[in-house]
């Protein structure tokens, strides 16, 4: 993941990222919240072509929904994510190399 993922999250957008498998779980592990109305199951698919097809299907499905209403219903999530810049700490996993 890069700033391409974090930028929209902290600016109050919903996201549909195509990234390494497990990225969605990691985003939630960091502390961001994601809405239930988006099906992120494509993120668990390791075959990149299949993953892209699944994402595309989800994208098309989302276009059929009333996004304005869903946006209003999920505003709390967006507000939570806006605050994550200050609430989520730095990842210090690299410090493990000091213990090897």
């Amino acid at each position, binding site marked *: 993941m890069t700033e391409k993922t974090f*930028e929209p999250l902290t600016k109050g957008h919903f996201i549909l990222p195509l990234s390494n498998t497990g990225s969605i779980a990691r985003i939630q592990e960091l502390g961001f919240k994601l809405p239930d109305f988006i099906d992120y199951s494509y993120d668990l698919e390791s075959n990149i072509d299949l993953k892209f097809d699944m994402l595309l299907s989800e994208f098309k499905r989302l276009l059929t929904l009333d996004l304005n209403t869903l946006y209003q219903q999920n505003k709390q999530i967006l507000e939570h994510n806006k605050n994550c810049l200050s609430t989520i700490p*730095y990842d210090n996993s690299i410090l493990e*190399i000091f213990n*090897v």
Partner: protein
Amino acid sequence: MINVIQGIEGDDLLWHLKLLGANELPKNVYFIPLVNHYNLHNADWFNNVRNQAKNFDTVVFYDLVHIGDYEQIIFKKVVSEFEHPNKIYLTVNQNKSFQIDSVKIIRWDFMWNRYKAYYTESVPTNLHLHHYSHGNYHTIDINYHLTRNKKFMSPMGREYGLRTRLYDIVKNHDGYISNRSKGITFENEPVMASLIPYPTNFTTILILVYMLKVTAAIANLYI
């Protein structure tokens, strides 16, 4: 002083380590960048790296920016085949099923740290941070009442200021070639980072079209 990390993806790594309270790295660790940002990864480079690594107890291979699945396969092969008794792969790939036999995987969200730091830390004037334009970027005035402004861009101006010009350069090439690998950097160039939002309603578009027509008509009078 930390001085063994090389490569564009590690340009600001020292500063980020200090944010985590680490002022120096273990002495017997050798760092090998996997992403070829500087276009230096040829046979001579690899032979040199292989010889240098023999003098260290531990070798840390690292990718600190997101890489695609194809590159990850290549990197995995390189790390797997590299002869050294103690190998670590420091990666931004958070896929927990990504494993390599006899290699310790450390997953580090360096890009989160970098992103957070851009917004919450003071940028030191004596350092050349990744994408930092030496203060030449314009102050960003974000108006959150305008929908399009929420799309925003990085405070370094890279999405708009840098990349617009970057695309102008690379369009003459068949494929993407990074500016840094060609020795072109924009660090000392003024960078635009403000954004005029696109019209979000039909009335605004009509007004803009009308203004354009008036401007064109006036221009015609003087031609």
